[in-house]
């Protein structure tokens, strides 16, 4: 029975209109009640982690350091208050510790037990134990250890977890300790302490390249080669340090605002979406796949139409762009664009938007 037929049963047009209106009111009321007012992922309101860039020290474009190579880890963060950021890194082989952490079941420490001491007051701190590497600093390096062998999917990887602490100190969390300032969570071995501190625990899986040095398993970081901006519907021009996009402020900050928006698009290098071989779990054959980019956008003021853009099966070469609604107050707005290729590759770019 179609809707039209149903309506014909109802009878007069006025009755149908009343029915529809009443339904609308009832359901709109229900919908309104369930609408939450949360901080959006695209709002930079505090300290947050964006991503991890891991690479071989000898070849910064390569995301998959090999066993025995020196690998570099860089943590990309954003903070509204430019606080001093301390970072503790714990590198373990995935075969021993990775699974509990990856499951998100609170077993991140994987049974690791350390005394409740403060760490990373100095970025030079380093500790190497069998199967465990401890480092400090937003940028650090280590020699890629044994991974413990390939996992059930034939990949070798290292699991990295740690904490980034803005404006505070990092302590090894006592096993029976209470939560402190945000970086504490069940199973997380570190915590961020400090009256004005904000910390986040994080995890990252670093693929380890083939020890033979073949290129088949290597992954290169995607690169954001440029950002273009312009008013919506107009021409987009490249953004540079001297070419700062400008836009008029907007008093109406609602989603239905009629103010002019700024269109921003990130351009990637040609090889950003790499083609890579992978064993198809269905056929057990090696097949070639294309990477899918996920791009995030963050602004310090104003509004964006969503926090992320991603390639999909329907649109494997999606335009990584966003629409910016300027804030009601004039000034410079930070926009951070960060992207991953889905295999550990990472890049980020920050631009300034001038609101008049």
């Amino acid at each position: 029975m179609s809707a039209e037929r149903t309506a014909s049963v109802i009878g007069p047009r006025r009755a149908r209109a009343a029915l529809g209106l009443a339904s609308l009111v009832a359901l709109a009321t229900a919908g309104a009640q369930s609408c939450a007012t949360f901080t959006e992922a695209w709002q930079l309101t505090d300290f947050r982690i964006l991503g991890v860039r891991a690479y071989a020290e000898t070849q910064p474009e390569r995301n998959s350091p090999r066993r025995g190579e020196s690998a570099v880890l860089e943590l990309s963060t954003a903070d509204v208050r430019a606080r001093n950021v301390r970072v503790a890194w714990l590198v373990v082989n995935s075969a021993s510790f990775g699974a509990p952490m990856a499951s998100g079941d609170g077993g991140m420490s994987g049974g690791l037990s350390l005394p409740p001491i403060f760490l990373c007051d100095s970025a030079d701190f380093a500790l190497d134990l069998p199967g465990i590497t401890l480092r400090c600093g937003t940028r650090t390096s280590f020699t890629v250890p044994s991974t413990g062998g390939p996992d059930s999917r034939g990949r070798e990887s290292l699991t990295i977890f740690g904490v980034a602490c803005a404006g505070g100190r990092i302590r090894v969390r006592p096993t029976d300790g209470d939560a402190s300032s945000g970086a504490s969570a069940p199973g997380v071995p570190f915590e961020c302490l400090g009256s004005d501190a904000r910390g986040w625990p994080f995890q990252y899986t670093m693929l380890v390249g083939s020890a033979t040095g073949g290129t088949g398993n290597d992954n290169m970081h995607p690169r954001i080669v440029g950002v273009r901006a312009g008013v919506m519907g107009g021409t987009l021009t490249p953004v540079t340090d001297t070419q700062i996009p400008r836009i008029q402020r907007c008093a109406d900050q609602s989603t239905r605002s009629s103010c002019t928006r700024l269109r921003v698009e990130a351009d990637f290098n040609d090889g950003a979406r790499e083609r890579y071989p992978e064993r198809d779990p269905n056929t057990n054959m090696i097949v070639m796949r294309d990477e899918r980019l996920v791009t995030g956008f963050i602004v310090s003021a104003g509004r964006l139409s969503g926090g992320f853009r991603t390639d999909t099966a329907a649109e494997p070469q999606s335009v990584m762009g966003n629409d910016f609604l300027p804030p009601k107050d004039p000034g410079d707005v930070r926009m951070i664009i960060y992207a991953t290729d889905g295999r550990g590759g990472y890049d980020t770019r920050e631009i300034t938007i001038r609101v008049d």
Partner: protein
Amino acid sequence: MLARRTLTGAAIAFVAAAPATAFAQGAFSAGTTGASDPDAGAPAQVADSPPRVVRFAEADYPEAERAAGREASVTVEVTVTVEGRASEVTVAESAGEAFDRAAVAAVQRFEFTPAMQGGQRVAARIRYRYRFRLRAQQPAQTQREPMAVLRGVVRSHDNRPLAGATVTAQLSTTAPLSTTTAADGTFRFALDAVGGYDVAVTSEGLRPYRARERLYERDDVRVVYRMTRPTVASTEPVARPTTPRPTRRGDDEEQGVTVRGARPAREVTRTTLERREITRIPGTGGDALRSLQNLPGLSRAPFLSGALIVRGAAPGDTTVLVDGTAVPLLYHFGGLSSVIQTEMLDRIDFYPGNFSARFGRGTGGVVDVGLRSPASRGFRGVVNVSLIDASLFIEGAITPNLTFAIAGRRSYIDVVLNAVLGAFDSVGLTAAPVYYDYQGVLEWRPHPKHKLRLSLFGTDDRLEVLFRQPGDMAPSFAGSFGFQTRYHIAQLLWTHDITPVTQGRFMFSGGLTGLSIAAGDLVRFDLNFYPQNLRYELSHQFVPGARLNVGLDMVWNPGNTRVDAVRPEPGRPLSSAPRVTTEFSGAAYLPALYAEAELVPHPGLRFVPGVRLDYVGPTRQWNLSPRGSARWDIDRRWAIKGGIGMFTQQPAPQEYSRAPNNAFPGQLIGNPNLLSQRATHYSLGFEHIFSPYINVSVEGFAKLLDNLVVATPTTQLLSQNPPPPFNNNGSGLVYGAEVLLRHKPSSRFFGWVAYTLLSSVRRDAPGAELYPTSADQTHILTVLGSVRLGRGWEVGARFRLVTGSPTTPVAGALYDANGFSYVMLNGMRASARNPYFHQLDLRVDKAWTFSWGSLSFFLEVLNAYYAQNQEGVQYNYNYTEAQPVMGLPIFPNLGFRAETSIL
């Protein structure tokens, strides 16, 4: 089958059955001075049939007691000789010398049919209660305790009570019974034999009326027969089942009273809720199946889930059947409407536990829905329209022996939601939820002893949502999301009387049940089963008070499942993870045999022992499930009841599948060595009748669960020597109590208070910590009532107060730098609860009667005082902010129902 709750198309039966003796009491209370209240007790020796009074003698009411206005009951013991005479009358329970003397003198003048044993008359000693009441004088009459009662009202073509009509009822093996209707059109047969009665009603100037009524032991069937004017062309009297017809005033007591579907009284308890109750309960939209949700033993389902949670069991543990065929769902999307229209229902049997051996493959409860037989004369149509959906029902007779009924319903939530959700297009959300259902019945009665019925019923629910942009919590997640649940089933039923005391019931059904789920590029899940079910049951009454039911219940369930999903991998966002396609097909062969006896060794005492043997083909396992229940009607006001039984449930197809799991090479999808889940039900309770309208039922219950299927954690599946993906290590315990205090429908009011005290806990492995299940709602209170105001107006209210469901708090989050998302870190499992749920629903009805039929209008206001009921917690993208998810706001629903008949 301790607490069967029956809901019929005309009525819903719910608490526990009024014992047969209560019917007799009703007959006696017609108002005789010094009327007796025979209550034959146990004979001194065991007899095949006890003595029965055939000649009643009225006692002389002691003048002094009459003057003092005193009433009393005297229980005497009397020896009934082989000649049927009373001797050795002694007082067992005295009411004073005067009353005692009068009672003994009267009983000494009684005449009885002697007790029979082995075909021989034997002397017996029985107890007899003689009640003295101060009422208007009427001649005393001989009373016998009947095996069943058929009574009702005969109305004229213009709906007035018809006095002086002749009503005859005849069983094929006995002489016809005949009576004449009283001034108010009523009649009553006290029947000493059960079976299919041919009833004929004649009255001068009106068309003769015929009907066939099936009565079983202890049935009390109430009917309304409506005579019609003769037509020129029609000379043959035809049968027409009584159908609810509103009276001119719209608030007459007879409105909504219709034929009581006579059912085998296998259960030890049964009480009936009437049509008026099921269609006027506030908050149900007049949907009979939704009225189930107001009964004790049912947990409150989460908002919009539509789940049926019976005595703390998981929704999937409760079996829903339509005339014996299992169907996958009872309610449409969101629980807003049931999948079968009220007009099509003959009955709803709800068994919260300790159910009959004829039901299996479930450890929770059973809801067995019966489709009604269409009207055997004329045509009737009903239209229901509400804010949510609209439905149409038509029934009629092609020939007197070939009848049909069809019904269809479609929602228009899609039209409304599309308009409403247009406001959200900036976030890229569009939706089109829609459902429909249909039922069709074609019934043929080639012979009074045979009934054939072909039924078609089905439903389709679907919801599609398009996320044009990735969400904050799942950056790699975008695309189209949706689900569809459906079933389409054809069913053939054949009921036949082999002899007056032997009945057979054959059922075969086949069809499709399906489920499809799509979640963007991540998951596509399609499941299709083609279940075929064959049942045959033979029921034979060996002697009065002893019936045996044996049956075969076979299920052949071929099906296929296809899962196309990304395989989550550490370090890879879902959009980049490889897709894995897993397909498996097979057929589950699930035959079962059962036997169940219904034993009444003593009036008022009833045992129902049974046993069921199930074979689970996929796991090659036999399950033997012995069960039993008992009920003892101590007197006319008190009864106790209890039951114990074992119940099993085969694992789900994905849990026992032998197909290879592509996501975990070298492993199977399921564990073919799984055992069936098992539950042992215990229950004990009592009932008390305070007055003809008010009664209470109290029942305690416990369920021990073991062999529960538990999924192995993914982390263990990734290990080098992974265990099977499922195991039987789970166990659990559910216990509690149910109370139902009910006021049956009177001319003005009906209502009840239902309260459930419940605890439902489980553990996933021996020695592991117990945790409360999501169904663990400690207190569940429902209070409802409805009052007739006159002139077709009726108002009602329902209030519910329920303990919030357990929840697992979020203890923090971890940033996944590979996928740009935050991983939620759980706190202790089920260590928090939602706040108490409370809600008031109001309903107003107005009915009109016209020459062409009737029209009624209703307005319901759900959550009338706008209670802010928390149904859960939602978090922002990094779990640092939380807000409660609220349930239904004030929600008005209105609709109308129009009915017309063509005779």
